[in-house]
């Protein structure tokens, strides 16, 4: 008698493979990541440069030396898009991981310890969910960091806008993960294997780390993937309004800031960065959807 033994990973992969859109999205994101990750290398190979201002060649149409044309300062658009993508993806992923870590910690504590701590944390979460997100984020993005007593070197550093946007967006994005993790922790806590390890004298920290967290991994991965798309959107909105990532650092969002005034002269400037944000976000959403279908045994 021959019996094929399916390893869980193989089953998972088989289920995930059926989701053709998710596969396509995953591949697309990999390609985007490779392009952005190796941005300096690609730009060197293509002999492009997104920093050189050339006022005699503004709004050039696509040509051999400028594959997508030039912007209002005569900089190469393709190079700007690649550099912008590097920043947008980096900020999006960092903020999403950060948000997911906060959410996991709060959800775990809330679900595992229960009682007053749970009530307090969940009230806070509900409170944050019931606030007008974007208007408040704009205030946070506008505050003067030196008044918060942060060291001068951090406030004036070139990358200050990067750190600030990561923190702001993460502060807004952790609630979904926190609720999800709490709900699953509540259910897991009552299971026999958790009780057994409590009886054996395991500390709370050990139970959470060794027994609960691995069981939540699938849900956290799905939620993080789905929220990465949203976080990239949020970052691009803030950057578009001039409050996120500050020039001269390019991001897909701030490439669109000037594009609005230029739609009569150079509509292509408004098209490409937005299209890239759109494609990236939709890919993250499809990927998350596919992962959920593959990882969720109920579906």
């Amino acid at each position: 008698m021959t019996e094929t033994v399916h390893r869980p990973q193989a089953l998972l992969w088989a289920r995930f493979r059926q989701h053709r859109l998710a596969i396509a999205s995953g591949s697309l994101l990999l390609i985007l990541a490779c392009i952005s990750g190796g941005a300096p290398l690609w730009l060197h190979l293509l002999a492009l440069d997104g920093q050189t201002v050339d006022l005699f060649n503004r709004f050039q149409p696509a040509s051999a030396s400028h594959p997508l044309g030039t912007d209002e300062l005569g900089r190469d658009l393709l190079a700007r898009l690649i550099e912008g993508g590097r920043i947008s993806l980096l900020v999006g992923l960092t903020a999403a991981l950060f948000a997911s870590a906060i959410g996991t910690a709060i959800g775990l504590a809330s679900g595992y310890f229960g009682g007053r701590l749970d009530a307090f944390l969940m009230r806070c979460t509900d409170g944050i969910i019931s606030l007008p997100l974007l208007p408040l984020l704009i205030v946070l993005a506008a505050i003067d960091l030196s008044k918060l007593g942060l060291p001068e070197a951090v406030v004036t550093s070139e990358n200050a806008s990067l750190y600030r946007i990561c923190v702001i967006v993460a502060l807004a994005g952790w609630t979904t993960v926190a609720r999800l993790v709490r709900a699953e922790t509540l259910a897991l806590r009552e299971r026999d294997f958790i009780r057994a390890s409590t009886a054996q004298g395991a500390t709370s920290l050990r139970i959470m780390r060794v027994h609960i967290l691995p069981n939540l991994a699938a849900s956290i991965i799905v939620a993080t993937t789905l929220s990465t798309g949203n976080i990239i959107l949020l970052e691009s909105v803030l950057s578009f309004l001039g409050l996120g990532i500050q020039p001269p650092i390019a991001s897909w969002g701030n490439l669109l800031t000037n594009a609005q005034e230029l739609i009569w002269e150079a509509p292509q400037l408004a098209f490409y960065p937005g299209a890239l944000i759109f494609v990236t976000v939709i890919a993250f959403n499809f990927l998350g959807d596919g992962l959920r279908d593959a990882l969720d045994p109920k579906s």
Partner: protein
Amino acid sequence: MTRFIFNRLLQSALVLAVMSFAIYGLMGLMPGDPIDLMITSDPKITSEDAARLRALYGLDAPISERYWHWLSGALSGDFGFSRMFARPVFEVIWPALANTSILLGLSFIIALMIALPLGIIAAVRPYSGLDYGINLFVFAGISVPPFWLALLLMMLFAVVLGILPAGGTAEAAGASGFWQGLKYLVLPIASLTIASIGGHTRYMRASMIETLRNDYIRTARAKGLSERQVITGHALRNALIPVVTIIALDFGYLFSGALVTETIFAYPGMGKLIFDAIMGNDYNLAMITLLFATAFTLFGNFLADVAYTWLDPRLSFGESDQ
């Protein structure tokens, strides 16, 4: 039920009070202060003058004291003057509020009129080609950057076709009449609508599919009702319960959407007012518009909770507020 509503209102009031302090504190952390603005407009002010003015306006007092001063003024109906408009803030807010209500109200209704039928159609034939198509559309709707969508619409209808204005209002352009006014609303409404259809359709589809699995639907089919009667007579009302709740929760996102759309189309509503007030260091105006947005969002959440308990009699009022 009365007790539940009362508790829930009390809770919202508490959140609003906490938020008013938080927003006031954040305002104090924004770059510059009113005296800095005076110095920029009048270079003759010396640093001694500035210190004296700060003391005169109470700006050197600790934050709790200043907040208390603001709050006691606000509670007696004095919200101060807007720096940008040089008028009491309430005179500035009313017209903006009226404009935003038109914009948000219309796009909200249009979005629902498109999204609910789409969701039902998709749910009636799950995993069909049509469902697949609608699903693609839904994903596109939730993934598109709202400001880019607005720019694309502007490019197509204002730049390429030239049939609609790229932004502003009829009054500002010197035109008058109902149809002229409507022309300026089309693009903002369209971009807000498209951005919110995706989410609504998704909820409606999920809820309808869930409802159609129930036994009473099988009974309705077994007694020979047409599929149409099953859907509209038996399934729809139950399927709408969770949808109504989620849509009420989405009230908060309406303000975020309005902020982006109004700023892009230079539409004089609350969203643009919030943005301009924050950017222009108009503290009094920013404070009150932000509080208003918060109150509006909290009210949406309150409605969602009430609607949920009211529509679903199985929920007992006592439990849900503990």
